[in-house]
């Protein structure tokens, strides 16, 4: 199927609109949008499903800014990094300018990220062909450590990651094939279904959490503020981006690099880049420009390890990798040698999504969000409850999956109430079996000789990268906390 075929273009357009609505409504994240969408994708041709997913995830991250502009409520965690600034910008220069800056910086940031995705994934895949289980062990461990250290609270990140990995141990063990923790139930022999887990953790738990939380704020009407404002949406922000080209490029490049680090993702990229701008005493415009360019460039960056190594860069790519495995597609160097067409299609869809879909859907999506915000909250929650049940059942047509859905919905609710990061549970669910497999294969190969993990030069290099990353991240977090603390203190004094 040609990537410019009507089916793919329609899938991108509809996926983008769907992502825009979910991304804009506070509490409904890109991850939730993707979790509820996956059961549909399983029935579509892979290229069409992937087109919708890429467009959805790119647009949802941008659309998080709509809630921030209209009601000072970020639609996604990636927008939370610069909510204050983008809201103030909307007050001062109008919502059309603020949303236009966000849409264009997102689109161009995504374009830079796509360029690096092509170069980075081809390069990584070529290098990864030489990797053995030792190198893969260190790479997966890097994903685990960066995922834990990127969590807002490290101990909670650790517990969430370990819970996800423990869920991943249910069923046959990956090396010797012994059933574990199945309690004699044959439905658990193949483990917890990844997509059912996802719907339980994000879909059902969202409904339960919103029921407990009570009515929340919704963004105000976006369409009224955007009427007759195409030039303020497109032209003025473009002038600003061109004038601040250096900052834009720096943010996009660093954003892609942060997205590339397994487990870090677009939220982290946006926080780092907007904090750098705050520390450099940048204006509201530059803080927004840096944050929004970085978080969308990071979306493409997260696909570099996902495609070339089979390691998720964030929760969204963790979901996509789970989908790949369900469809029988094995990401990693083999994907590039055996299914290069699919890889090229992914690149092209990213390109089209950046250049065309994001600005267009960004503009149209703002109007659609207006309609969605008129839906009563209870109807929205009822709809998610119905879709959660439907999606979890449709995957295997097995009623037992609904028990798993209820159990994980309850676990997700408890984790949300305790402010534990749910994304880390999903990353643990994907990375846990990989980490165990490479650990056990390496140890069996060398008869439990731990020194063998450091004998191959690349393995030793990756072990040192792990150590450097651990020390570097701890130092960066301490330094940022200190400097932001000092900034807050100065603000209070003033």
């Amino acid at each position, binding site marked *: 199927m040609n990537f410019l075929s009507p089916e793919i273009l329609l899938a991108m357009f509809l996926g983008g609109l769907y992502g825009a609505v979910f991304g804009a409504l506070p509490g409904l994240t890109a991850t939730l949008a993707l979790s509820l969408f996956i059961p549909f994708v399983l029935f579509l041709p892979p290229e069409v499903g992937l087109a919708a997913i890429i467009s959805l995830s790119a647009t949802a991250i941008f659309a998080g800014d709509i809630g921030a502009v209209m009601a000072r409520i970020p639609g996604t965690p990636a927008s939370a990094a610069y909510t204050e600034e983008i809201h103030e910008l909307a007050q001062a220069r109008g919502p059309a300018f603020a949303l236009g800056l966000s849409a264009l910086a997102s689109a161009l940031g995504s374009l830079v990220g796509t360029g690096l995705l092509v170069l980075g994934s081809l390069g990584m895949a070529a290098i990864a062909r030489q990797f053995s289980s030792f190198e893969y062990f260190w790479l997966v461990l890097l994903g685990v450590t960066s995922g834990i250290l990127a969590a807002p609270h490290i101990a909670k990140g650790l517990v969430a990651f370990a819970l996800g990995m423990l869920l991943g141990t249910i069923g046959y063990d990956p090396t010797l094939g012994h059933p574990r923790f199945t309690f004699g139930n044959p439905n658990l022999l193949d483990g917890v279904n990844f997509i059912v887990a996802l719907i339980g953790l994000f879909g059902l738990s969202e409904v339960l959490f919103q029921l407990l939380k009570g009515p929340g704020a919704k963004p105000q009407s976006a369409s009224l503020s955007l009427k007759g404002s195409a030039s303020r949406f497109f032209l003025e922000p473009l002038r600003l981006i061109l004038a601040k080209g250096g900052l834009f490029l720096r943010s996009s490049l660093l954003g892609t690099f942060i997205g590339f680090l397994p487990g870090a993702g677009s939220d982290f990229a946006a926080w780092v880049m907007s904090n750098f701008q705050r520390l450099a005493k940048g204006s509201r415009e530059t803080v927004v420009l840096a944050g929004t360019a970085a978080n969308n460039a990071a979306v493409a960056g997260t696909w570099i390890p996902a495609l070339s190594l089979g390691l998720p860069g964030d929760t969204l790519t963790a979901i996509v990798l789970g989908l790949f495995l369900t469809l029988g597609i094995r990401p990693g160097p083999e994907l590039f040698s055996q299914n290069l067409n699919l890889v090229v299609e992914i690149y092209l869809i990213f390109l089209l999504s950046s250049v065309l879909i994001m600005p267009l859907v960004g503009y149209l999506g703002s109007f659609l969000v207006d309609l969605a915000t008129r839906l009563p909250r209870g109807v929205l929650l009822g*709809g998610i409850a119905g879709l959660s049940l439907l999606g979890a059942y449709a995957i295997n047509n097995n009623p037992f999956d609904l028990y798993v859905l209820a159990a994980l919905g309850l676990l997700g609710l408890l984790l949300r109430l305790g402010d534990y990061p749910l994304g880390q549970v999903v990353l643990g669910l994907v990375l846990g079996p990989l980490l165990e497999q490479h650990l056990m294969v390496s140890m069996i190969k060398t008869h439990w000789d731990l020194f063998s993990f450091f004998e191959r030069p690349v393995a030793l290099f990756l072990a040192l990268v792990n150590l450097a990353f651990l020390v570097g991240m701890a130092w960066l977090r301490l330094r940022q906390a200190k400097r932001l603390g000092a900034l807050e203190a100065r603000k209070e004094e003033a």
Partner: protein
Amino acid sequence: MVWERLVGVLAAGLGVLAWGLSLDLPKAQGPGPELFPRILGTALVLGGLYLAWARSEGPPPSQAAGRAGVKAALLLLLLLFLLAPSLLPRLGVAPTTALMAGAGTLLAGEGLARALAAALALGALAYLVFVRLLGVPA
């Protein structure tokens, strides 16, 4: 924050359970299938106990979380989801989906008319898209 501590205790309990259940796993020459769950169990026990005992950093629990009506709604919805595996083979996919959407809407505080509308919309989606178009068994 009470939930933070509660999840800490739950995580530590799951860690102990992982250790306990791994004792029954078949032994191999050297570490076998029990090794990884034990590593995770240790991390869960240590992390969970730290979070259960450490000074809380989160916001206080919201008042809504303590209201009796809200708790009842939550429990009812959870109960419905637990009953769904028995209901589904008897009622079929579309009616069960409609029931869940309607019940969810009602429990979220909307009126009967809106709950019926949500039930009809989701029931129609389940039937037309999943059963007729995608071939999910009814």
